[in-house]
């Protein structure tokens, strides 16, 4: 009971307060639905779109892009981060490009990638991977650099091979930092997927936003889609937290 009161009640109250404020703004301002629909209208539209299957193809498309892009981006970023941390040369040669690539907004890059790779899963996954890569690589680099040198010397005194050093000392020691990067990466992956979908294509939650705003002119649907995107972000972030908890408990 107290757990319920302590953990669940405050966010619940905050959420209800948020919805009430939203509704109040709509009432007081007297905005029409096509400018700012109230939470009840949006909730209704959400349920309807979910039930009649409007969301389904778009949601699965977006999730597939995130899954492929995030996995590929993180898989490439982790070894890169490690090498950057351990090789001064690699850091000097590669880091400027990384930072430069990061400074170019993905919004500007997305049409270019669409031009080269089309508007299918591949192009979108590439964009997601690009967005995920930087925070994961940097956090892995910082985490590996931060490993206590004295632990490494201890390991060396027992004649660890390079592979043993990586798997038995460096990875577990860097894991909290790496997971922190994955947390940032997964939320950026959602943004990346939506941005990628704006460049065209038939399905995807980003496409649905464009449709709702454009040809369908269904503003409640647009809001309902935003809500769905937010839920996707929360669920994915939550699953990274679950993985983190599992890893921490196991190690």
């Amino acid at each position, binding site marked *: 009971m107290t757990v319920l009161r302590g953990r669940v009640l405050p966010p619940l109250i905050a959420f209800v307060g948020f919805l009430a404020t939203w509704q109040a703004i709509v009432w007081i301002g007297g905005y029409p639905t096509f400018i700012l629909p109230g939470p009840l209208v949006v909730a209704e539209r959400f349920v309807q779109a979910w039930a009649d299957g409007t969301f389904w193809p778009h949601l699965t498309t977006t999730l597939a892009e995130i899954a492929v892009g995030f996995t590929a981006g993180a898989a490439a970023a982790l070894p890169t981060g490690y090498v950057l941390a351990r090789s001064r040369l690699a850091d000097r040669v590669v880091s400027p490009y990384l930072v430069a690539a990061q400074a170019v907004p993905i919004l500007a890059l997305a049409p270019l990638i669409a031009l080269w790779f089309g508007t299918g899963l591949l192009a979108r996954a590439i964009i997601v991977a690009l967005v995920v890569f930087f925070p994961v690589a940097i956090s892995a680099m910082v985490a590996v650099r931060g490993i206590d040198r*004295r632990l490494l*010397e201890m390991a*060396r*005194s027992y004649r*660890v091979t390079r592979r043993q050093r990586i798997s038995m000392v460096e990875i577990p020691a860097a894991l909290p930092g790496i997971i922190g990067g994955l947390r940032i990466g997964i939320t950026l992956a959602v943004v990346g997927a939506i941005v990628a979908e704006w460049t065209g294509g038939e399905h995807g939650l980003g496409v649905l936003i464009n449709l709702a705003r454009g040809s369908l002119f269904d503003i409640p649907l647009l809001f309902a889609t935003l809500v769905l995107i937010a839920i996707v972000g929360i669920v994915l972030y939550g699953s990274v937290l679950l993985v983190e908890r599992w890893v921490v408990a196991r190690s």
Partner: protein
Amino acid sequence: MSDAPPPAETAIRLAGLRFAFPVDGRRVEVLGGVDLAVERRSVVALVGPNGCGKSTLLRVVAGLLRAAGTVEVEGRRVAGPDPRVGLVFQEPRLLPWRTALANVAFPLEVAGRGRTEREDRARELLGLVGLREWAGARPAELSGGMRQRLAIARALALEPSVLLLDEPFSALDALTRERFNVEILRLWERIGSTIVLVTHSIPEAIFLADRVIVLSPRPATVAADVLVDLPRPRRLADLDAAVVTRTAAAIRAHLAGATDDAYAVAAGEVGRHEALEEAPR
């Protein structure tokens, strides 16, 4: 002591050991020609002022640093990290994500021993240092003294013939420390390895060691080699014996000329050579 005893009886032989750290561009001499022979199954204590190079000397003997000169363990050269030498660092250096048992099993895992062998041996070692009940605890759940004992157990995992202890109990309160010294002697009697330990406590050095080596300030050389003529097994009450007072006085006399760098500078006791090294460039 430089007239060498028969090789089989010598656990560690150091001859003309020189070592320097590169510190922004210049070389800071830490070991200035250390000669030392340690008899098999004996306990030798190293004392010397802060920063004189005691830890460095142990790391050289353990093969973690390569120095000019000779380092031999049991008649064979030490050319890198060496399984015949177990080093317990000044801090426990445990892996925080591993349990006590898994920390002790770490060297065995690295050496590729099988799972059951690892567990059995690690449990045995935990028992040896009195931590049998703590097998599943993480380092963060252990007290400072328990962590140090865990580090000792880990260093014993590969059955080294030489155990190097770098101020193993410096973080403990005086009473616990006395108790641990008794434990160390008991452990030593059971495992029968040669022990070299660094300490800043003269009574501790006398209580534990057969010989106390006094090192000079950096660059370290052997300033004195004091025999401790106290029978074994030793008890804490022995520390009141007249021999102890005499031995302590002898060690102090040698250490007096070998005070802490900073203290020596402040007291204007540094020789010309050192004064030059300390001077700002």
